[in-house]
């Protein structure tokens, strides 16, 4: 962020009020996460006799170890792996097919190009939730229930990423492609040598967004993974609650919730700059 002229900025007590306001906001944001963390470090007995403590206990390793190794229905380590495969599959798969098709519609004139472009528009933002029943039937007919391909493929069947890459390719100066042609580069060579390296930041930003999108899926894995060994961690948490939540084992559940947050938080915080740029620029 650029240094800005502070002429209209508040000073003195106003500045402290501004900080105070923000700190209250941060506290509101973090309170649920903090409580979950506390619950994941204490004993079940500390929770079922309210009020629960507000500072960490000494059962951290015990709780996380139990969750990771045995969990409730399936080891959380397995669910983490499933989530990782799903999120990576969605992010990488969608980016790959979108790059190729965006390259085709921007740099070639081929029969059906207009039709294809309109099909892309049709798929924009139509979430899987809307066509959930028939999509489930398709997956069931293909025998893809309880499989990674079943988890991944329906969620890469939309063209948001294609649209974003198209927008980006349109801003690449025409002269670069011409220079590459004069230099003797054929289409795929231009794609790999020039276009792909130039798209690095867009690809990285989109990767973050799609990784989070894939990791945080809930309804779809809930429907097609009936085998606990195939559960993803986000949908697996709810499966840990018994029919009535009175006997829920809260330390395990909260440890799992924290584990479910860690990978996406690392990705978002670690790639913050790229992510914010990608988010704010791509969606505007």
């Amino acid at each position, binding site marked *: 962020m650029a240094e800005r002229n502070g002429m209209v900025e508040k000073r003195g007590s106003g500045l402290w009020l501004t900080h105070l306001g923000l700190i209250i906001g941060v506290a509101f944001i973090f309170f649920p996460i903090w409580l979950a963390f506390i619950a994941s470090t204490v004993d079940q007995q500390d929770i079922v006799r309210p009020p629960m403590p507000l500072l960490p206990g000494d059962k951290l390793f015990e709780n996380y170890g139990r969750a990771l190794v045995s969990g409730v229905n399936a080891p959380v380590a397995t669910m983490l792996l499933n989530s990782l495969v799903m999120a990576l599959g969605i992010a990488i798969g969608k980016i790959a097919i979108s790059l190729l098709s965006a390259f085709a519609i921007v740099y070639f004139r081929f029969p059906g190009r207009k039709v294809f472009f309109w099909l892309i528009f049709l798929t924009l933002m139509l979430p899987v939730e809307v066509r959930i029943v028939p999509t489930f039937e398709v997956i069931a007919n293909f025998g893809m229930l309880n499989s990674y391909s079943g988890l991944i493929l329906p969620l890469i069947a939309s063209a948001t990423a294609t649209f974003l890459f198209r927008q980006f390719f349109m801003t690449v100066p025409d002269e670069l492609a*011409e220079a590459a*042609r004069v230099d003797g580069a054929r289409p795929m060579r231009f794609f790999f040598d020039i276009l792909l390296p130039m798209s690095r930041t867009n690809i990285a930003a989109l990767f973050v967004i799609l990784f989070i999108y894939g990791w945080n899926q809930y309804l779809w894995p809930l429907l097609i993974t009936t085998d606990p060994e195939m559960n993803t961690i986000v949908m697996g948490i709810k499966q840990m609650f018994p029919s009535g939540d009175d006997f829920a084992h809260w330390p395990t559940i909260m440890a799992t919730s924290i584990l479910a947050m860690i990978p996406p938080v690392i990705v978002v915080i670690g790639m913050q700059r790229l992510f914010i740029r990608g988010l704010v620029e791509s969606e505007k």
Partner: protein
Amino acid sequence: MATLKLDNVKKSFGKTDVIHGVSIDVNDGEFIVIVGPSGCGKSTLLRMVAGLETVTSGEVQIGGKVVNDVEPMDRDIAMVFQNYALYPHMSVFDNMAYGLKIAKVSKDEISERVQTAAKLLQLEPYLQRKPRELSGGQRQRVAMGRAIVRKPAVFLFDEPLSNLDAKLRVQMRLEIKALQRELGVTSLYVTHDQVEAMTLADRMIVMNAGVADQIGAPLDVYANPATEFVAGFIGSPPTNFIDASLVDGQSGRIGVRPEHIELSDTGRITATVGYAEALGAETLVHLRASDGSQITVRQDAALPIPGEGETRGLSWADENIMRFDASGLRQ
């Protein structure tokens, strides 16, 4: 090294004709400048030679071979683009080497050719930098270097200096000319700047609305413009045009260059002095003739500067009269 020949080359986009048939024989090693206002078709003509636009009709020959249907990479040309078109993610070295790598030139030879070009262009200290770390002039040189290393038969320049500031433009203009002399490569250079055209060209093509109005050596074109457009476009300040009826009762218009008019008490016509620009070495006097047309006179700074509102006579020698008919052609 090669000759280049355009034979009645035409271009149309759909039903719109943008180039109406241009022909020229370019000698080996010759520097040809295509000059004209924006939208006259000069860039399109160059891009057809490059193979970036298809030729609607007519022939383009490089080194005696018709290349109408040959891909740009196989035409033995190199091109310098207006915005340089450097690959932003590659170093200066890689930018220059890219075409050679694709052509599967050996590593040693690539390195040698890039080093030679870098030396020629004083780019040696910058070979590992990215284009965004270079100044405008340096980027310009990298673009030139990329063209040089390929040792092409023909250089194509598409307004290569228009993104530079005025001072740098003059300097790079001289460098390009010196470089082309040294390498002796046939060159085709597009610009809208008539000063660049005058200083760089062995011969120039003055384009107007898709037609080559005149092809010739710069001084010949200046002295003997073929059309009213050429007379007005080449030269700064531009040629004065006066209705012939005002001067000698004939039809059409006559053109007289500003430096060929003298202010006197009586003259061929009279005009009212507007304002005068004293530039130091010379003075430009702007006047208004009786029919309202603007006339500019360029006189030596030593001569007295007339006062605003004075009426003065304008006189010029017969040999400096350029007479044009109603359609703009030289009579």
